[in-house]
């Protein structure tokens, strides 16, 4: 299980491939991998967004994410979990968050991946500030509904 807070851009698919290769205990045992990737869009709530700044609470963010991954691992008998979340300056098309879960069967991987994402969106201490094309900036105040 890994929780990574990253201040630089990352390649989600290459990272996934490398992460999986380094987990020999998965060999032949995982039938299911569910992945969610959140990516920065260039629009939000009707406005064009040119850049974003992602703030977090160092220490608490990691602690909270580890807690929800541990909980999901127990609840769904996961074989492996990876969460990567960007902080700092982010540009359109940059990956923001990657959640990946590995399990024997698909039900567990799907449910765990979504539960981790929903908890992350509603409870993990991250905050987005958008820089609009107009020059204005603003804190994002709410997320879209997950269910």
């Amino acid at each position: 299980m890994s929780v990574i807070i990253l201040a630089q851009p990352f390649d989600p698919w290459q990272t996934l491939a490398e992460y999986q290769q380094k987990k020999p205990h998965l060999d032949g045992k995982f039938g299911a991998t569910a992945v969610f990737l959140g990516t920065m869009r260039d629009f939000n709530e009707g406005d064009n967004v040119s850049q974003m700044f992602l703030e977090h609470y160092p220490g608490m963010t990691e602690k909270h994410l580890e807690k929800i991954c541990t909980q999901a691992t127990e609840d769904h008998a996961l074989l492996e979990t990876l969460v990567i979340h960007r902080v700092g300056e982010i540009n359109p098309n940059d990956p923001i968050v990657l959640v990946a879960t590995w399990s024997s069967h698909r039900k567990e991987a799907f449910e765990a991946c979504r539960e981790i994402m929903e908890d992350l969106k509603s409870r993990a201490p991250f905050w987005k500030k958008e820089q609009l094309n107009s020059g204005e900036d603003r804190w994002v105040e709410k997320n879209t509904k997950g269910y």
Partner: protein
Amino acid sequence: MFSVLNYGEAEVIVGIRVKFFASMRDLIGDDRELDADIVQQQDLKTADDVWNFCAQDKQRPANVLIAVNMDYVDGQTEVKDGDEVAFFPPVTGG
């Protein structure tokens, strides 16, 4: 009202470390180095007291979130010397 006391080489924190994040920092007008925000005040018993002391006349938004030692709590939670208390708006990561 804010200070870090140094005794020899070891940093000893006497008081409550307070942090504000995102729009809550803007509201408080807090442009100090946050890690140095140690409140030394004997009569702060709860997280609510800490907010009131730091925010002074600024009303606390209803949706503010509070963490003590990086766990979510409510405003009635007791705090003591050495604790870290954080106030922040609803989270918007992911």
